[in-house]
């Protein structure tokens, strides 16, 4: 019996081992490719399912962004360290009053199907994006162009009401004029000095003539762009494959490797394990379990990549809650949060305390815009609280997933311990429901308000959040003085003068404090041993042209 048992056990065991050996996917191929010739290499990066069909004006989330960034090139490129704009497809962008822009294109730019990139490709693409019934998610980025209101209408009673938005009067914006094959003119509703940087955002990409002859949904299945990488295939939940476009003219953005696989993972943890065994080449963010206690530094050493992200976190104080109107209370709450301690302990040094409403790394950043109000000072905080006469309790609402809960609970505890008032963290079901609450104006206390810049400008940290009716004005704050100052800054032709006015507006926020700035995230990503070098850019994306295998 014993011998039989041994024999009986040996067979399945050896079978299992054999299957495991041949089951091990030939990930060895990746390594073989990368050591032979850099120009033939395939690299793989972490990805998530794009939420939309990856048309440039429809992609506002990270999953699709990394693919659109690779497939399309806009008029203006942004430098990886700090997003300083430089001319990419544009040869020149000239304006005398920052209201009318004359744009000339470089010759020799081609789409992946061989057709040339001409001025009308930009104008037609922008008109398509802005036209309401095309339901492009980024339509309101075009709102500053003259004629936008004729192509985009709002729902008169909100999306929940029975009325639908009326059909727009026109299909094209009057502010866009094609002047020749390689020249067009854009007229804005009002002067806006940041516009020449704003058009570097991916939603302003051109679309080929082919797009306008077919159903957008069909085009999206095999998109054709003008970027350094061209589309090969997309298998949902598995991967998106791209390959190098050899006729790409610009040396700064040209890629050195041959194929790119955006591998879609359901959890960051699984991706991190692949990165550790060099089966995945790049992740732009690391899972909380790897960041805890700085473990990633031990695991990865010099493979860690960091970047100054252009984003900021904060807590919005809704204007529609009368109990929080008192500014002394707001200052007290802000001074009761021990940002340094929370950044070091709960956030594992992955964040730095914020000292204003604009983060470091953005042109126009001034240290200490928030002044003493953002410094931890328990005595002063208690004084201000007493002066305000507030006796109620404080709540902080946010979605609890993605590591959002822990630092806010710590902030709440900090407030509780310093001011001896009750503070609780109220979780929302998920991000979608949380944003719904904010849009509908249903917060019951402070709400988490994070912001990632769309394009590199101090203006982008102020307008959408603090202007009356701004798209991300979570606090529903309205201040006519601030609006006037912003309008003045927007219409100032000289960019440096404009920045001075924006800085003034930034400092103006300290007194009324519609949003308590909390911290700024430091971008931490990593590459595998297969890559000699790679750069994480300030928008938390891999800068494809910097990858060397």
């Amino acid at each position, binding site marked *: 019996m014993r011998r039989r048992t041994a024999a*009986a056990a040996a067979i399945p065991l050896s079978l299992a081992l054999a299957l*495991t050996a041949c089951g091990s996917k030939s*990930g060895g191929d990746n390594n073989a490719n990368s050591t032979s010739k850099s120009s033939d290499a395939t690299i793989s990066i972490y990805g998530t399912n794009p939420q939309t*069909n990856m048309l440039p004006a429809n992609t506002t989330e990270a999953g699709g962004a990394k693919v659109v960034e690779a497939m399309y090139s806009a008029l203006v490129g942004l430098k990886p360290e700090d997003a300083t704009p430089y001319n990419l497809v544009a040869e020149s962008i000239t304006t005398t009053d920052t209201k009318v822009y004359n744009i000339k294109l470089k010759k020799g730019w081609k789409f992946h199907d061989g057709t040339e990139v001409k001025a009308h490709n930009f104008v037609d693409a922008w008109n398509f994006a802005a036209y309401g019934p095309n339901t492009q998610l980024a339509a309101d980025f075009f709102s500053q162009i003259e004629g936008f209101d004729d192509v985009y209408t709002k729902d008169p009673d909100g999306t929940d009401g029975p009325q639908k938005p009326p059909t727009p009067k026109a299909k094209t914006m009057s502010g866009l004029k094609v002047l020749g094959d390689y020249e067009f003119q854009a007229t804005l509703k009002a002067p806006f000095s940041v516009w020449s940087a704003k058009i570097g955002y991916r939603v302003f990409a051109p679309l080929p003539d082919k797009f306008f002859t077919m159903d957008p949904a069909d085009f*999206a299945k095999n998109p054709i762009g003008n970027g350094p990488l061209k589309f090969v295939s997309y298998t*949902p939940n598995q991967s998106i494959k791209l390959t190098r476009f050899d006729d790409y003219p610009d040396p700064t953005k040209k890629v050195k490797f041959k194929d790119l696989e955006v591998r879609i993972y359901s959890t960051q943890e699984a991706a991190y394990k692949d990165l550790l*065994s060099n*089966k995945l080449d790049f992740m732009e963010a690391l899972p909380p379990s790897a960041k805890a206690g700085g473990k990633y530094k031990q695991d990865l050493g010099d493979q860690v990549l960091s970047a100054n992200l252009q984003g900021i976190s904060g807590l919005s104080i809704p204007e529609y809650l009368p109990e929080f109107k008192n500014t002394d209370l707001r200052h007290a709450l802000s001074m009761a949060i021990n940002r340094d301690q929370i950044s070091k302990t709960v956030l594992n040094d992955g964040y730095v305390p914020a000292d204003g409403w604009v983060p470091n790394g953005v042109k126009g950043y001034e240290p200490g815009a928030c002044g003493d109000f953002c410094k931890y000072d328990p005595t002063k905080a208690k004084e201000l609280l007493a002066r305000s006469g507030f006796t109620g309790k404080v709540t902080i609402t946010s979605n609890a997933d993605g590591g959002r809960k822990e630092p806010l609970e710590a902030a709440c505890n900090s407030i509780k311990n310093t001011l001896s008032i009750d503070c609780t963290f109220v979780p929302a079901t998920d991000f979608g429901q949380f944003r*719904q609450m904010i849009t509908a104006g249903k917060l019951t206390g402070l709400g988490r308000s994070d912001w990632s810049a769309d394009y590199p400008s101090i203006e982008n940290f102020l307008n959408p959040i603090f202007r009356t009716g701004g798209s991300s004005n979570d606090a529903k704050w309205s201040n006519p003085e601030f609006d006037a100052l912003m309008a003045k800054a927007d219409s100032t032709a000289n960019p440096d003068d404009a920045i001075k006015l924006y800085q003034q507006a930034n400092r103006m926020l300290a007194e009324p404090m519609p949003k308590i700035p909390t911290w700024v995230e430091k971008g931490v990503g990593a590459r595998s041993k297969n890559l000699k070098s790679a750069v994480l850019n300030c928008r938390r994306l891999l800068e494809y042209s910097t990858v060397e295998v």
Partner: protein
Amino acid sequence: MGRYVLRRLLQFVPVFLGTTFLVYVLVWTVPGDPFAGMCGDRACPDEFVTAMRTKFGLDQSVFVQYFQYLGRFLSGDFGQTYDNLSIGEQIGTAYPTTLRLAITAVAIQIVIGGVAGVLTGLRGRGYLDNLVLVGTLCLISLPVFVTGSILQLVLGVDLGIIDPTVSADASWGELIVPGFVVGSVSMAYVTRLTRASISENRRADFVRTAIAKGQPRRRVVGVHLLRNSAIPVITFLGTDLGSLMGGAIVTEGVFNINGIGGLIFRNVAEKEGYMVTTIVTLLVLVYLIMSLIVDLLYAVLDPRIRYD
């Protein structure tokens, strides 16, 4: 037997309708707008939200929506998700993977669990018996994600014997370790069940008769004893296979397997009503068929069991 099978198949219809309707209503009544979170930190344009609502019929009553959905489902059109991806295609890619994982898991359970159970059941007490009992106790007490993470770290990252994640094709070989992980708890149960069943039947009349008749030990154990002891184990394995078809959410997450479990989990979080209902409907069907097969197997195994 024929009439029995027919009756069971007819019972499928009300169960199918009832479950699918319930799931549909539950998914749609969960609070939250699926389009609210699609635009990041800003509100989505009105046109987009309205157009999406009309396209997916969200502005009609639940009953109307359900019957439209049922009509499309029965004609084979599984529809699209909110980002215009074919539901049928996604399920088509995910289901074979889950199937392979489930079969691998059950095969491992039968081989390792069955062999260990038979050996310890026949032998009685001893070193092997204690080893198996302690081993199964450990496997039952460890949660699946612990087993999975440990094996992934040790075998995948540190020793490099396997790849930490399963590739897109998910071949049989790659699924051995995930199959072991997902079936580890059930394997422990199978071992104990087989062990108990065998040691109980060891002293039964028919075994004594077979030995008295002079049958070789191999035949006594292999034919008579095993066949009769298999009934509780088959019941367990049948329901286990049925539930494994539903996807192993945790294991799929750990090893990044593109299977049904992960698909459901992601789509519930994103409030993709159609996807969730379609998958659950398919799972209900699979489960019904599995339990029918298990019941029929009883009659094969044990001649005493008869269905009118």
